[in-house]
C-alpha cells in the first residue's frame, strides 16, 4: 500500500528543491507593471543563480575540504516521520568541578520516539543496563532511523556513555547498542552530540572550569580524539558537514557572546583554537548564536541567534530571536523565521527542508520551504517532567 500523502509531498519536494526567486522581485513589485512574459529567461536566471551559488561555494569550501569520507552518508527516506526526544535535567550552573557531583533535581524522564507530524509519543526507548535515563542528549543520522543518545552511569554518576538505536518503519526502536568507552565528567558534561552523516563518528562538546573540548568517537570501536583549548565558556552545539570532516560548533567568547566556528577534523594535533575558524558573514547584529546545523548540501548553515538592531539602546526591548540561513559562499544571513530568545537546539532533517527546534518544553517544527510552523509539547513518558528540564530532540 503506497503512502500516497507522503509520496506526494516528496514528489513536490523533488520538483521544487533548489528553486530560487529572481533577486529584483521587490523592485518589480514596486514598479507595479506586470512583468512581460519572457519565455525561459527567468527560469534560466534562477538556474544560473543556483549554478553560480554552487560554483562560488567551491573556493570557500575547497581549502579545508579533505578527501572524500570513508563511507557513504545515510540517505533521507523522505519527509521525517519520527523525532527522538529526551531531556536533560537542569542543575545549578555552577562552574566545575561541582559538575562532577551535580545531581538531577528531580527524577529522570525516559527518552521517547515521537510522531514527527503530531508530536504524539509512539514508543519509549530502552537504556542499556548500568545507565540511567538522566542527562540524555540526542543526535540523528540523515536517514531519520539511526539515533545516538547519551546517558549517565547509574551510580556513581560521574561518567557518561553513548548508545545507538535504530527505528523500524513503525518507529519502534531496536535494543540499544552501547558505544564502547565512557566519558568522565572531570572534563565537563556533554553539552551536545552530533552524529556524522554516515553514522560512523560521534562528536560531542564539553566544557569545564579551565578548558573546553570537542571529542570525536569512532562509533564502532570507541576510539576517540579530542581538540581542546584552555579557556572556560560554553561549547553548546555541534553539527557535521556533509563531507564528514568539518564540524560546526557554537562557542562562548570572552565577551560572553556565542559565535559559530568550524573545526577541521583532519587537522593533526589537539589544539582546538588552531584547528577551528569562525564562520564568515555574521555581523554584530546577529549575536549569540546558540545552535547551528549544516544544510545537507554543505552550502549553508541554519542557526538560531539573537537579532540586535544596530544602535539599539534598550536592547532588551528590541532584540528578538531569529532562525537564520547563513550562506557559506558569502553574503548576509537571511532570516527564515522568528523564534524566542535564549538557548535552543536545532535539528535539520536529512532532506534539509524540515527543521525542529526545542525551547523550554516545546518542539517547533518549521518547514523551510513554506515557512509553516507547528508546535507541540510531547507528553511525558515515565515520571513527570520538571518545568526546568531542557528538552532535546532530533530527526
Amino acid at each position, binding site marked *: 500500500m*503506497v503512502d*500516497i*500523502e*507522503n*509520496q*506526494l*509531498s*516528496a*514528489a*513536490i*519536494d*523533488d*520538483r*521544487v528543491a533548489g*528553486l*530560487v*526567486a*529572481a*533577486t529584483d*522581485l*521587490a523592485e*518589480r*513589485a*514596486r514598479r*507595479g507593471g*506586470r*512583468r512581460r*512574459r519572457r*519565455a*525561459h529567461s*527567468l*527560469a534560466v536566471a*534562477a538556474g544560473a543563480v543556483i549554478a553560480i551559488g554552487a560554483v562560488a561555494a567551491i573556493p570557500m569550501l575547497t581549502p579545508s575540504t579533505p578527501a572524500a569520507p570513508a563511507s557513504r552518508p545515510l540517505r533521507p527516506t523522505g519527509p521525517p516521520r519520527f523525532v527522538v526526544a529526551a531531556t536533560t535535567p537542569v542543575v545549578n550552573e555552577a562552574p566545575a568541578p561541582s559538575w562532577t557531583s551535580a545531581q538531577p533535581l528531580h527524577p529522570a524522564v525516559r527518552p521517547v520516539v515521537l510522531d514527527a*507530524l503530531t508530536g504524539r509519543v509512539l514508543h519509549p526507548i530502552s537504556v542499556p543496563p548500568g545507565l540511567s535515563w538522566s542527562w540524555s542528549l540526542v543526535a540523528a543520522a540523515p536517514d531519520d532511523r539511526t539515533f545516538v543518545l547519551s546517558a549517565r552511569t547509574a551510580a556513581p554518576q560521574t561518567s557518561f556513555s553513548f548508545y545507538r538505536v535504530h527505528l523500524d518503519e513503525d518507529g519502534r526502536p531496536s535494543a540499544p547498542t552501547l558505544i564502547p568507552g565512557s566519558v568522565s565528567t572531570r572534563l565537563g558534561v556533554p553539552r551536545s552530540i552530533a552524529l556524522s552523516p554516515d553514522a560512523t563518528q560521534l562528536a560531542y562538546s564539553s566544557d569545564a572550569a579551565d578548558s573546553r573540548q570537542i571529542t570525536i568517537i569512532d562509533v564502532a570501536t570507541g576510539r576517540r580524539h579530542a581538540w581542546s583549548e584552555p579557556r572556560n565558556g560554553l561549547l553548546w552545539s555541534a553539527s557535521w558537514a556533509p563531507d564528514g570532516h568539518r564540524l560546526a560548533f557554537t562557542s562562548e567568547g570572552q565577551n560572553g557572546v556565542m559565535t559559530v566556528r568550524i573545526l577541521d577534523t583532519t587537522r593533526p594535533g589537539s589544539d582546538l583554537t588552531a584547528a577551528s575558524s569562525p564562520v564568515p558573514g555574521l555581523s554584530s547584529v546577529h549575536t549569540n548564536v546558540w545552535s547551528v546545523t549544516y544544510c545537507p548540501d554543505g552550502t549553508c548553515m541554519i542557526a538560531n541567534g539573537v537579532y540586535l538592531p544596530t544602535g539599539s539602546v534598550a536592547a532588551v526591548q528590541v532584540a528578538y530571536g531569529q532562525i537564520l540561513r547563513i550562506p557559506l559562499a558569502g553574503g548576509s544571513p*537571511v*532570516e*527564515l523565521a522568528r523564534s524566542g530568545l535564549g538557548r535552543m537546539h536545532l535539528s535539520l532533517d536529512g532532506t534539509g527542508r524540515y527543521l525542529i527546534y526545542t525551547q523550554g518544553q516545546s518542539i517547533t517544527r518549521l*518547514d*523551510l*520551504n*513554506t*515557512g*509553516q510552523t*507547528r508546535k507541540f509539547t510531547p507528553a511525558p513518558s515515565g515520571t513527570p517532567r520538571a518545568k526546568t528540564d531542557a528538552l532535546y530532540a532530533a530527526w
Partner: protein
Amino acid sequence: MRDEGERSFDEFVEARASALLRVAYALCESMHDAEDVLQVALEKTYHHWKRISRDDPEPYVRRIVVNTAISGHRRRRSRPEVQVAAVPEVAVRSESDTTDLRNALFAELRRLPPRQRAVLVLRFWMDLSETETAQALGCSVGSVKSQASRGLARLRAAVAEPAWTRGN
C-alpha cells in the same frame, strides 16, 4: 510608503520569495506561470504592505499566491496555445521505483483541477490543517475534505495505472 516600510518589504521579499515561488510552482503548470503568479502576488502585497506588515504577512501573501494561481488557470484555459521551453514533463520509466512513483504523482497532480490541486498542495505538502486550508482557499472545511478525497483517489488511480501505460 517609504523608508521603514520599503526596507521591511525588501527584507520580506528577500527572505521569503523563494519559498513562495516553490508554493506557486507546486500550484501552477509551469515555471513561467509560477513566476507570474509570484510577481502579481508581490505587487498586490506591496500596495497593502503598510496594513498587512503589522502582523505576520506570509499567510496573507500565500493566500494571494494560491488564489492567483487558481484564477490564472481559468484565464489560461482560454488561450489557444502555450509556448514552452522544453518538452512537457511526462512520467517515464526509470531505474528507481520511487522516482517512477513520484514522477507519476507529480504529473497527475498537474492534471487535477486547480482547486483540487491546491487542496492537496496545502494539505499534504504544506501540512496545513483542513481548517487552515479552508481559510486559505476561502471555502468550507467540507469542501476541503471532499476535494482532498477526490484528489487522492485520482492520484491512487494514477499510481495503480501509471501514466506511461495509458494510451498505449
